[in-house]
């Protein structure tokens, strides 16, 4: 357990040592801020619904950018050899890196707390959906982080890791909007595969165990696949 903590601390610090963290956070805040506030006054509603509607799409680009270096960089530099020959298991490594990435997503979301706070001065804001939205955002961020981590474990090239991550996250985000292409009998199944579908529920403030189980299973599958890839590389 302490090994996971040490790896987590190192990875989390690493984000803020390099300029990547600041670039990604600025881009995230710019994009969400722009898309959210350009329509905010037109709708004339004191709610964050539009902000949360946008999140899955934005996350499917931003989170792979956060996770792409986690394994790919180590493998191209060769430091992976050092890490793996220290007394840690590959499970410690994967979990440490995963939690660092989730913590980074949380750090990235932190400044957006200013949105509901400032909106609450403009009208009566319902805090329930806001809290649900943030819980959902963390769950979604965790799921996409696990996918991004898996993409990063596949290759030593960070760009390939990024594109693979985006492809999987984006597919999960839009799959429930593409349902009209598919035959009727698998519609329900495909709809439940969609990350956006489950995120929508949570961000309305409804904490359904089905949605939480969905996100946790994506996390589990992503991390387990990374584990298998790393074992296979030995």
């Amino acid at each position, binding site marked *: 357990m*302490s*090994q996971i903590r*040490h*790896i987590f*601390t*190192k990875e989390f*610090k*690493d984000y803020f*040592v*390099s300029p990547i963290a600041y670039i990604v956070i600025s881009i995230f805040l710019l994009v969400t801020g722009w898309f959210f506030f350009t329509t905010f006054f037109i709708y004339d509603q004191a709610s964050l619904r539009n902000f949360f509607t946008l999140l899955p799409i934005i996350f499917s680009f931003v989170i792979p950018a956060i996770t792409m270096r986690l394994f790919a960089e180590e493998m191209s*530099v*060769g*430091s992976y*050899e*050092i890490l*793996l*020959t*220290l*007394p*840690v*298991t590959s499970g410690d490594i994967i979990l440490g890196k995963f939690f660092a990435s989730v913590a980074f997503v949380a750090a990235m979301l932190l400044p957006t707390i200013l949105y509901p706070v400032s909106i609450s001065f403009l009208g009566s804001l319902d805090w329930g959906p806001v809290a649900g939205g943030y819980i959902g955002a963390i769950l979604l961020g965790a799921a996409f982080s696990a996918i991004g981590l898996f993409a990063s474990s596949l290759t030593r090239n960070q760009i390939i890791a990024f594109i693979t991550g985006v492809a999987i996250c984006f597919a999960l985000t839009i799959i429930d909007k593409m349902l009209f292409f598919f035959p009727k009998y698998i519609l329900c199944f495909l709809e439940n595969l969609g990350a956006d579908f489950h995120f929508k529920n949570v961000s309305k403030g409804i904490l359904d165990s089905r949605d939480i189980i969905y996100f946790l299973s994506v996390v589990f599958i992503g991390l387990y696949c990374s584990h298998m890839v790393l074992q296979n590389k*030995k």
Partner: protein
Amino acid sequence: MIHIEKLTKYYNELCAVDRIDLDINKGEVLGLLGPNGAGKTTTLRVLTGFLKPTSGSIRINGYNIDEHLLQIKGLIGYLPESAPLYYNMLVFDYLNFVADIRGIESNKKLTRIRELSDLCGLNEVMHKSIGELSKGYKQRTGLAHAMMSNPEILVLDEPTSGLDPNQIVEIRKIIKQIGKEKTIIFSTHILSEAEATSDRIVIINQGKIVADGSAQSLKGSGQSESSVNIALKGPDFESVKDLFSADNTIVRIEPDDNGNDDIVRIKLYCRSSSDLMENIYKKIKATDWVLVELHQDTKTLEKIFRELTMEQ
């Protein structure tokens, strides 16, 4: 202490290590020699748990590598080839991280880092990022990393490659110093280095062990014929040949490449015997020639290495 049995490692179809058996005792400094691609690095990587063997077993201090990998990793300090450390970390932060992972208590951490920094000469670069360091300092940081928990076994993959002669001497000094108490396994393709620092030399070629022993015993092995070089002033080649042709310990006499001066250089191939040099000297003494040079060719490690690895 380390017991390797029938270790084999395949990369897809390519066989990198082919049924190696090796026993390494406590306190031994073992130099692993071999040409490029012989399987040195692969052997070390399997030993340190970075790679899984295709077949065969490794036992260290009674721990089997398949079941007790974590304990084995705890026993070994490993410096991979060309020290691939985290480039964006400061040396101090990095050593701190390694100390944490190695489970060094936080109140002893600073003293340990200070000790290692003195030993490896890192004091000036403690607050530089690893990416900025020269190759020598990087290697030293790697060495400090490997020695962090004072491990019983140190595995160093080409610890001196790419360093300048001064740095090589320093690293060797460090290796010798720690080698007094620890088991050290290091790979190199510099033969003089293996000769200078190790108690035991193992030469591998194409994934197989082709020689194993101390530098001295390796030199003694091989063919029983030895050669003596002499340089004489006075006679010509034919008369020297006549002088030695009667001696039955001498197998062959060949002229060595002559300079333009009036000195005759000759190479005598003889069966090894203890009073060889004495015989030759006495024979020459009986003539009125001037003996300028007389020395026996010692078989160098280079030569043995070439013989063993060029065959196939």
